């Protein structure tokens, strides 16, 4: 089974902890260090050497300081090197405007943040299906 390299971009420590507690033990997932906002992610990606592997899945929180999910998504899709990475948005609230806008920008999915463990597992399954496609 191939290993999927996942980056979570999330400013909320509780949400980061939760995410790691659910998924860090999964064998076919490699959780890269979490980023606190879009600026950190951009910096991380740009510092990757040409021979280093890019992440397969980037999970972006929408509401973050400095550079929010939507802005980060726009950066990724405008950049040839990163445009093919599956990027998804997950947010506490997702109104139709946000969904439409992010889909237009090229988000693989726009999800509402789950409130149960079961919800998290389902959400991740959906994200991973996008990567496999």
């Amino acid at each position, binding site marked *: 089974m191939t290993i999927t390299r996942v980056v979570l971009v999330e400013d909320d420590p509780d949400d980061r902890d*939760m995410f790691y507690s659910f998924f860090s033990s999964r064998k076919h997932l490699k959780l890269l260090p979490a980023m606190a906002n879009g600026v950190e992610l951009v910096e991380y990606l740009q510092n990757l050497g040409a021979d280093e592997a890019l992440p397969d899945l980037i999970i972006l929180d929408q509401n973050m300081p400095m550079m929010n999910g939507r802005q980060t998504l726009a950066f990724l899709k405008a950049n040839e090197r990163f445009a093919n990475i599956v990027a998804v948005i997950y947010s506490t*609230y997702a109104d139709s405007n946000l969904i439409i806008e992010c889909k237009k920008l090229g988000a693989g999915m726009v999800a509402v*943040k789950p*409130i149960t463990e079961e919800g998290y597992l389902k959400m991740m399954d959906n994200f991973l299906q996008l990567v496999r496609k």
Partner: protein
Amino acid sequence: MGNVMEPQSSIHTLQAEIDALKTQLEEANDTLDAIRTGQIDALVVKGDDGHALYTLRSADHTYRIFVEEMTEGAVTLNAAGIILFSNAQFAAMVRQPLSKVLGCPFIQFVAAADRPLFEQVLSAAWQDSAKREEVLLGDMESLPVQLSLKVLDFDGDKTLSMIITDLTQQKKTEEELKHKNEQLEALNNALLSSNHDLQQFASVASHDLQEPLRKIQVFSNFLMERSYHALTDSSKQYIDKIISASNRMKTLIVDILTYSRLSANDAQPGVVNLQRLVDEILEDFDLKIVEQHAVIDVGELPVVEGNRGQLRQVFYNLLSNALKFSTPGSKPYISVTAKPVKAVELGVALLNEEEYCHISIRDNGIGFDEKFAYAIFSLFEKLHHKSTFEGSGIGLAIAKKIIDKHHGLIIAKSAPGKGSEFSIILPLKQTNLR
């Protein structure tokens, strides 16, 4: 005039001649009076070589009376700008007796600051014949007036006639209107900015409230899933209460957000098939309908113009209420029917040519006291105790706001225990109403 004296006339004939002359004098005096008071337009006088016609200059009777009676000032100036004629009204305007006005240069009644302008207008009027200008009369208690100047030609003898209109009232009205407009604009701006602030507030508050609320939901769920067995019975109850209260709060916030967003965006109306819309919603309620053994009767519904998402929300909220507020122990029966209505049949509130439809959503639920029929459309208005019926109390407020935005009406009719009926009156077309 024409009588030939004879030397041999007797005293008697002389006396007769004196009488005849007296009569002629009286007639002449009458004629003069008549001329002076403007009752005569022309005289025919018998002379040595036949009759001569004497017409009076500007003596048209009707116009003379008219000029005296009118509320405007009227003057006639000669080439030197001296007032040859003035009506009483102009004399009153400049607060002078008429006798003092006649023979004066008009310019002396014009406010000093406006005299150069008046001279320009005057010379222009002599050249182009007709002019209009606003000037001030008098220096102390100045009077704004409009001058209408026109050169009149009498047998090669040119005079300038001028109508002077008092603009005091007009200026006052203009001033008031301007003031009122400014007030209105200020109010409007205040309203716009407070509306904007309110929307901004509702949106930001709702978004930002959702994050900590989600934490409460997440961690109380974790407690429930992972440590429920370790809790005492009372602690389990507390957890249940936390979860249900936070779920309720989530509903509230989402509904406030929906409500505030209704003011913000104005999408172009599309074509909405209400029949299909209601069918779709009933599919969503499938499980509830089966559970409650509800019977739902949907008549023929029209196609209207509107915002589909918003209209869906209206019917969703009303049908959800109809199912929610059912009479315990009896099967809910809900009917959705529609009939066309002409605007005129609806009375004064909708006085135009538009065609409307009257949609009725009727149920046999618990109903409510009709004195609340208006209040139920307000934000957070709940008639039923929250433990009996879940919900935010915003559903009907949202429905009303959407129907208002569609230039329609929504009315509730009910009595406790008798079920309720919601009537929606909706224009078929939005285009002419925007």
